[in-house]
């Protein structure tokens, strides 16, 4: 266990939602070997936009590593949330605050996962410019909330 460098304070309910989203994200990554999913494609950008052969070769060399890392990161997030297995204890107060203490490796995994989840959500929501935002659509609320959490984590890491 590495030294704790940042502590996230989140409510039990929020942790539950977050675990649900990261769990879905992990499934999307796992299914990506079968499907041609544009959201996964965004996680593997074209390295050579003008050279299909070089892009394909680059993806052949890096793709498995990148997707494997997404899966490992997601597993770390779920583990540090204490939700890598069973459900949250029904007796727990959903409004109670949970402290999630992260070491350097775990903080990096959280940061990359929140960023990757936003990329997947953005593809699903069809976000193509910074002005694409529908306040009435609750899915945008989730997108913003993940962004808020990511920004807070980055700020905490920058302050060290």
């Amino acid at each position, binding site marked *: 266990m590495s030294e704790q460098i940042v502590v996230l304070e989140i409510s039990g309910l929020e942790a539950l939602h977050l675990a649900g989203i990261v769990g879905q994200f992990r499934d999307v990554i796992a299914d990506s070997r079968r499907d041609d999913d544009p959201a996964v494609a965004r*996680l*593997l*950008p*074209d*390295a*050579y*936009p*003008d050279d299909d052969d*070089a892009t394909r070769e*680059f993806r052949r060399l*890096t793709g498995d*590593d*990148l997707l494997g*890392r997404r899966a490992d990161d997601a597993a770390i997030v779920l583990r540090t949330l204490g939700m890598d297995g069973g459900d949250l204890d029904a007796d727990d107060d959903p409004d109670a605050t949970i402290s999630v203490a992260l070491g350097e490796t775990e903080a990096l995994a959280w*940061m*990359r996962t929140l*960023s*990757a989840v*936003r*990329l997947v959500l*953005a593809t699903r929501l069809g*976000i*193509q*410019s*910074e002005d*694409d935002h529908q306040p009435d659509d609750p899915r945008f609320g989730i997108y913003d909330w993940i*962004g808020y959490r*990511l*920004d807070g984590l*980055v*700020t905490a*890491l*920058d302050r060290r």
Partner: protein
Amino acid sequence: MGMMAGLATPDLDVVDETDLRAQPPSSWQTVVWNDPVNLMSYVRHVFRTYFGFDTATAERLMLAVHHDGHAVVARGPREVMEAHTHAMHDFGLWATVRKEPA
């Protein structure tokens, strides 16, 4: 002595050729492109921690990505630029490799 003086001229040519040959290894770039999703604070953090830029440099490059649509974040041999691009993809940034424009 005379022979050494005689060799001086070809030596200069060799030096010139070496300079020309030295160009290709550093003539590739890693470019990071703007996207509507990644947060400015996150991009700045990645630039600072991965490349080891000071805060001002990381900020300047992040703003270049945001306002100009892209920024060259590294220059050098192709393999190194590919390694940087792989690392940027690992952080979810939209990065590409290209030859240094002539």
